[in-house]
């Protein structure tokens, strides 16, 4: 009787297990009885990439997955390890993830541990400080997902939250805003600080870190007189003017705010800054006006197909000037903004001339009215003549 009940129970359990694991593939899954009791991690684990590739509980925790007997399953003879110690987690993960042979079929890199050991996290852990982040802090313990999956804790959109479990959350500024708009190319914490090799970039490295994306800006900056001066004084290159983390959109008001931090008001350098600002503002203003008139002309159904590409060209010159301003090369900036302005002004005057066709129409209208009024006059006179005749 008891045997029958037990048999029934086992059948039921295997059915449940099959239902739960169904479709999750993986050769070893049918033999993983751990999650029958450890249901609190079941859902998390089953969503993970490990479950999909048959990396079971035993791989990290040891023990015997083939028994429902609590003692046997957690026996030391079955190499049961329990919850791994924080100190040993990097090595535990690396036992597979740093093995090129094991990772080859998945196309994964194997240098994470090496990178981690160079990071601030890894260095402190090596000194025995277990409060620092280990693999599981960022990747989670059971619900490990590839970074490209939007639910993953290491997906670009979630990274700032993941880092904020320990650090202050810093997802403000232009980069955070771009990310929030769904631009996954925008930098996250890891882009500047490194992922596995996370560390604050040194003063000399900042321009290189920013310059991986802001290539044109860095090239122009390095040609400028700022480069040498700031290196000598060990000033952080990009950060000095643009700040870090909560980076504001770079507007022309920066010329008023930040130049005076180093250069006295009225100094030659400060005047150069103001000159650049005026040049950019003037070009921007001309472009804006030309665009406005173009839109007006478009509403009036005038043919603007000649002026549209010219305006694209002018805009292109202006946008090229924006990184070029970091060179502090006044003559170059002057030349580029002059081109943008002259094209914009040309477009503007051309569009005005196009609208000037209205003057000819008004002239024509005047002639039409002169004729029509004469006609009305003649008709009126004829009418009067006929009525007068009758009287």
């Amino acid at each position, binding site marked *: 009787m008891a045997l029958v009940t037990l048999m029934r129970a086992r059948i039921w359990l295997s059915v449940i297990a099959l239902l739960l694991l169904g479709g999750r593939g993986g050769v070893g899954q049918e033999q993983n009885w751990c999650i029958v009791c450890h249901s609190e991690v079941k859902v998390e684990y089953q969503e993970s990439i490990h479950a999909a590739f048959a990396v079971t509980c035993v791989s990290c925790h040891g023990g015997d997955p083939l028994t429902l007997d609590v003692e046997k399953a957690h026996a030391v003879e079955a190499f049961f390890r329990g919850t791994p110690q924080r100190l040993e987690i990097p090595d535990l993960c690396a036992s597979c993830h740093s093995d090129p042979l094991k990772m080859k079929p998945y196309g994964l890199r194997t240098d994470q541990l090496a990178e981690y050991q160079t990071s601030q996290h890894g260095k402190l852990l090596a000194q025995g400080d277990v409060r620092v982040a280990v693999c599981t802090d960022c990747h989670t313990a059971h619900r490990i997902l590839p970074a490209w999956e939007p639910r993953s804790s290491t997906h670009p959109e979630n990274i700032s939250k993941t880092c904020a479990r320990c650090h202050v959350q810093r997802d403000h500024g232009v980069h955070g805003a771009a990310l929030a708009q769904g631009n996954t190319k925008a930098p996250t914490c890891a882009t500047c600080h490194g992922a596995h090799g996370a560390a604050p970039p040194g003063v000399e490295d900042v321009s290189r870190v920013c310059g991986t994306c802001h290539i044109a800006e860095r090239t122009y900056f390095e040609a400028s007189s700022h480069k040498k001066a700031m290196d000598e004084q060990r000033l952080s290159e990009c950060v000095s003017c643009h700040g870090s983390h909560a980076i504001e959109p770079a507007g022309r008001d920066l010329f008023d705010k930040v130049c005076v931090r180093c250069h006295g008001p009225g100094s030659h350098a400060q005047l150069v800054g103001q000159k650049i600002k005026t040049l950019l503002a003037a070009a921007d203003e001309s472009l804006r006006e030309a665009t406005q008139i173009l839109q007006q002309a478009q509403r009036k159904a005038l043919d603007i197909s000649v002026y549209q590409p010219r305006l*694209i060209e002018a805009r292109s010159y202006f*946008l090229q000037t924006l990184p070029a301003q970091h060179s502090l090369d006044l003559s170059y900036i002057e030349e580029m903004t002059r081109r943008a302005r002259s094209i914009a002004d040309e477009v503007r005057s051309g569009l005005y001339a196009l609208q000037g066709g209205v003057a000819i129409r008004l002239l024509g209208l005047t002639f039409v009215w002169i004729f029509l009024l004469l*006609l009305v006059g003649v008709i009126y006179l004829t009418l009067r003549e006929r009525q007068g005749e009758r009287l």
Partner: protein
Amino acid sequence: MDEKKQATERRTLLETILKSALIIGVLGLAGAVLAYLFPPKRRISSATQRRMRVARVDEIPLGKGKQVLFAGEPVWVLHVKSGWIALSAVCTHQGCIVQWDEKRLTLNCPCHAGLFDANGNVLAGPPRRPLKRLRVSVIRDEIFLGSSEEEA
């Protein structure tokens, strides 16, 4: 007697003026209609039927490109190994005009260093979308440009 004769003369004069004025008016309107009906120089055609001659085949050797204006937009017509490719020259990031780099076989954006390959795919930099592709066709020894591939 004289008065009556004068009145009749005035009346006939007025009616002649009226008639000729009406005829002039109708002729003017007819002239306007004829002017309207005279076919304009530029032809209208729907997007799929528009085409533009770019160059003769031997004018753009392998690896070179030519920038032309098509429907108000700068366009690069490139001659690469796989054949002829036409791409919008307007960068998908901020709208600068990209330049063809004959040595590296890439399209470079001078503004934010966006980099595209000759198929329009993003290689590096801030742009997220590939460059818009246009239809290009070699007919005998002439290269022609057509509407964008999505429209077709």
